Each structure stands twice: as structure tokens, then as C-alpha cells.
């Protein structure tokens, strides 16, 4: 297992786009909480009308709200990591190195595994980074730490991991089907609006089906949290049925990747 990961990392770590995308991604993760606070401060300085309410006291980055808030926002950045995955796999097709890897003695399953391990590493790395960022931000901005449970709502962190991992495996599948990087990135970007457009046309009585579309299912892991700040009911937990649906898709995606590679001539 480590050997397969080592092989794939050797291909990636010397590739410039890999670092550029990862560094951009890291900077964005780091800068979001900072800019949110700066924005709230700015609101305060400008004396925005909040009916006498101090915007700094909106608990966006306070424990326990922070976990759902930041994981929700950060899932929008997963496209960066998905692009890394798409480039890494489409390169293997355009350089024909997937073919040479197999000639040299990898099996098709080995190849899939080596890519999946990289995806696993990327999602674990990102999850860890988000966890640390959340923890530090929460500690810095929560007014009184003694009254709060830091790890309340922490289940959004593993949910974030599952979200990322499944999304990247989906990107893997798209790349195996489409082979060219630009096209795959384009389709991946278009896919979400397409899925939402389709779901808008489903008759009312069948509307629940949309929740089982792949990207709907992934997005259902972490629900939109900010509505609670205008006093609406939100789902502030990770629904187990969403996890179940996503896991099912994960298996399906990996099976489809395997089937496609097994039956195609490289």
C-alpha cells in the first residue's frame, strides 16, 4: 500500500501545478476565517445598523457553531483538490504513462489503488488542516472558552472528510471516462448546476428523488448553517441517511472506475 502511494507521490511532488494548487488551497483555507473577522470588524467600525447589536458578537466563528460553519464554507474549495486529482489522472492518459505503468508490472487495480491512496491523503491532509484552523480560530474568537464544549459539533469534521473524498473519487471517475483534463474540469464544474437544474424540474411528488442525486447527497452531509442567524430552523447535525447514501455512491464510483479500466484497451 505504501509502495503504491510512494509511486504516485513521486509523480506528483515534482509536478509544479500540484504545488501551486495546494498552496492556493491552503492560503484560502487560512485566509477565510481571518477575512470574516476583518469583515465583521469593518462592519462594526462603519457602524452598520444592527439595532444596537455588535456584529463582533455574531457567533459565526465561535464554538460550537464554528465546526459546521467552516466545514460548510470549505467544501466550496474542494474544487482545487479535485483539479489536482483530475490533472494527475488525465496526465497519465495524455502521457500514456498509465499504459507504461501496467507494462512495467502494475495491475489495473494497483493503478486505481495508488490514485485512491493519493486522494485519501489529500482529503485527510485537508481535513487535518481544517480541523487545526477551526480549533485555533475558535480558541481565538470564542469570548469565553470555559463555558463551551470545544468538540461539540466535531462530527462535521469527519463529514467534511467524507464529502471531500467522495467528491474527488467522483472527479477520478469523470477523468477515467473523459480522459482530457480541461474537458473533465469543465464538466465537473457544470455538473452541480446541471444536477440542481434537473431537480428543479422534478414534479413535487417526486422531489425527494433529487436528494439522492450524487452531488445533492454529498452536499447533504453538511447543511447550510447560516440561516440560523436570521432565526430559521437548520439541520445542525450530520444525518446518518446522508452518510449512508454517500457511502453507497462511493462504492458505486469505485466499482465504475474499476469496470471502465478493466474493460478498456490502454
Amino acid at each position, binding site marked *: 500500500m505504501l509502495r503504491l502511494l510512494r509511486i504516485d507521490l513521486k509523480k506528483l511532488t515534482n509536478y509544479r501545478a500540484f504545488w501551486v494548487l495546494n498552496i492556493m488551497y491552503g492560503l484560502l483555507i487560512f485566509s477565510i476565517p481571518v477575512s470574516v473577522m476583518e469583515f465583521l470588524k469593518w462592519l462594526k467600525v462603519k457602524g452598520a445598523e444592527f439595532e444596537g447589536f455588535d456584529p463582533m458578537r455574531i457567533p459565526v466563528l465561535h464554538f460550537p457553531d464554528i465546526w459546521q460553519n467552516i466545514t460548510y464554507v470549505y467544501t466550496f474549495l474542494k474544487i482545487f483538490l479535485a483539479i489536482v486529482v483530475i490533472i494527475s489522472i488525465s496526465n497519465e492518459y495524455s502521457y500514456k504513462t498509465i499504459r507504461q505503468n501496467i507494462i512495467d508490472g502494475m*495491475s489495473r487495480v494497483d493503478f486505481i489503488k495508488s490514485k485512491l491512496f493519493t486522494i485519501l491523503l489529500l482529503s485527510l491532509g485537508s481535513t487535518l488542516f481544517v480541523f487545526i484552523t477551526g480549533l485555533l480560530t475558535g480558541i481565538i474568537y470564542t469570548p469565553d472558552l470555559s463555558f463551551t464544549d470545544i468538540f461539540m459539533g466535531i462530527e462535521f469534521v469527519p463529514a467534511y472528510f467524507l464529502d471531500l473524498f467522495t467528491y474527488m473519487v467522483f472527479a477520478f471517475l469523470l477523468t477515467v471516462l473523459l480522459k482530457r483534463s480541461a474537458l473533465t474540469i469543465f464538466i465537473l464544474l457544470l455538473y452541480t448546476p446541471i444536477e440542481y437544474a434537473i431537480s428543479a424540474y422534478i414534479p413535487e411528488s417526486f422531489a425527494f428523488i433529487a436528494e439522492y442525486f450524487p452531488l445533492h447527497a454529498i452536499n447533504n452531509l453538511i447543511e447550510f448553517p447560516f440561516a440560523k442567524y436570521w432565526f430559521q430552523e437548520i439541520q445542525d447535525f450530520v444525518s446518518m441517511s446522508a452518510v449512508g447514501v454517500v457511502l453507497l455512491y462511493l462504492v458505486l464510483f469505485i466499482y465504475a472506475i474499476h469496470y471502465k479500466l478493466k474493460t*478498456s484497451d490502454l
Partner: protein
Amino acid sequence: MDTVLKIDNLTKHYGRITAVKNLSLEVKRGNVFGILGPNGSGKTTTLGILLDVINKTSGTFSWFGQPPGKEVRKKIGAILETPIFYPYLSAVKNLEIVAEIKGAPKENIDLVLQKVELYERRFDKFRTYSLGMKQRLSIASALLCDPEVMILDEPTNGLDPQGIAEIRELIKQIAKEGKTIILASHLLDEVQKVCTHFCVLKRGTLLYTGSVEDVNKGVESVEVMSEAPETQEVLETYNKATKVVEDSGKFVVTLVEGTHASDLNAYLFSKGITVSHLLTQRKSLEKQFLELLAESDNA
């Protein structure tokens, strides 16, 4: 001699096209085996199937008497069509990946790079290499695991004469070490120069398989030139000549089997004719190849 590769009734269809048709072959240890055929005759498809990158339609094959699989492939050094490497990585990094896949020791990397004379350029990116250097790197890569079998597909394709000579020298050198080599080529001359055995494919069908030596045997033709005016008459009366053809001042004499140019020379001398030009025409692989192709067209 044991069998390295055995193919039985291998067939591959691409839609309605049959790329390989009921191919059966055997390659013995130590052979330098040439697969000859015009472009599109199924050479690369066959090698692709043998290396598991192309799915066969039917038939079987075995390497070293074992069914195909990734462990078998680790013992084979192979290049199909063009040299394939990560263009943004150096030769060393590329070979590290290959070594990791094949489970070959990293110490071999420097050795094989020296062997193909790329050691000086080992830290340069693959994309900066000339075509000849790329071909040599792929041979280095194929040698990395100290393979029992090497598969080379058109290894001199696109090279200049010097590059071709270098690669051929390298192949001969490797063959001398006792390795089995399978070489696909559409260049007959190349196969004749380096191979011990060969087969001929056309549109996926096997036309011929045998040793290169056998081709060089058989009836001889001799080119003769002489000042003496009665030459043609004398040649035609030679009882060991089956055919005499005049061709721009030269006579091409086809001799019966077992008779050689020296016999002809002795005969002419005994008749008082001295020759100014005497040349044995080897029946080249090219002729044999074209004959085979022509036969298959008539069939």
C-alpha cells in the same frame, strides 16, 4: 531449450476489424525473435495483448509457462511504440518510478544509465531529450530489472543512421548476454541483422515463422561479368545453372542447390574465361518477405 512465450490461437477484434487472427507462436529462451509485418499488421496489438494493456478477444498465452499477470510482467522489460515517460521528470526520477513498480534495486539505475550513455544527462528532464536519447532511456528502463525477456517495438523508428547503429549495437550486446529479445519491426534489414528467428504477420495472420539462418540457405544466384564475348553461351551450357539472365552487361546465374560461386568460377576458368566481377546474391529476407506477401495476396 525451454519456452519463454507460447501463444495459442490469439484473436483480437476491434469492432468489425480483426487485428489479430488465430495467432499461434512460440519463442524459446535465448532467441532474438523478430516480428515482421507492414504497418497495421497487428504487431503492436499482439505485443499489447501479451503485456496486458489490450484485452484479447479469445485465445491464450503464457509467459515462462505461467498464466499472464503483473508478477510475470515485472520480469519483462518492454517498450511499445514510442518511449513513454513523465516529461517533467528527470531520467533518474523516471527510472525510480519504474524501479519501484518492478521491485528492482535502485542501484541498477546508475548502471543502466551508464550502459545507454545517458549518465551525464541523468538529472535533465525527459522532455529536453532528443529522440535518440529517449529511445535509449526506454532501453535503459527495460533493462532496469535485469529482465529475462525484452520486448522492443520499432526501437529504431525515427532515428538518424548513427542512432540506428547505436541502438542495434546495444541490442546485439544485450542478446550476447543471453537474454531473449522480441523485436517488432517493419524494417526487414533490421530483423535480418539482429535476429535469430522471425515470423511474418499480415493483417493479423501469421504467414511464416522460422529461423533467419534458413532464409540464407537454399539456392544461390551469382552475378557474373566478363570481357569474353562467348560468356553467355558458356554459362548457358553449364549443367549446374538453372537459369541465366542478362541484366545490363551482367549475367545473373541461378545455380542448383549445393553449388556455389566458387564452382561456377572454376568451371568458367576451365573454359578459358576469366571474370572481372563475381558476386553471390544472398536471397535476402526482403525478397522472401515480399514473396510471402505476394503469395498471401494470391491465396
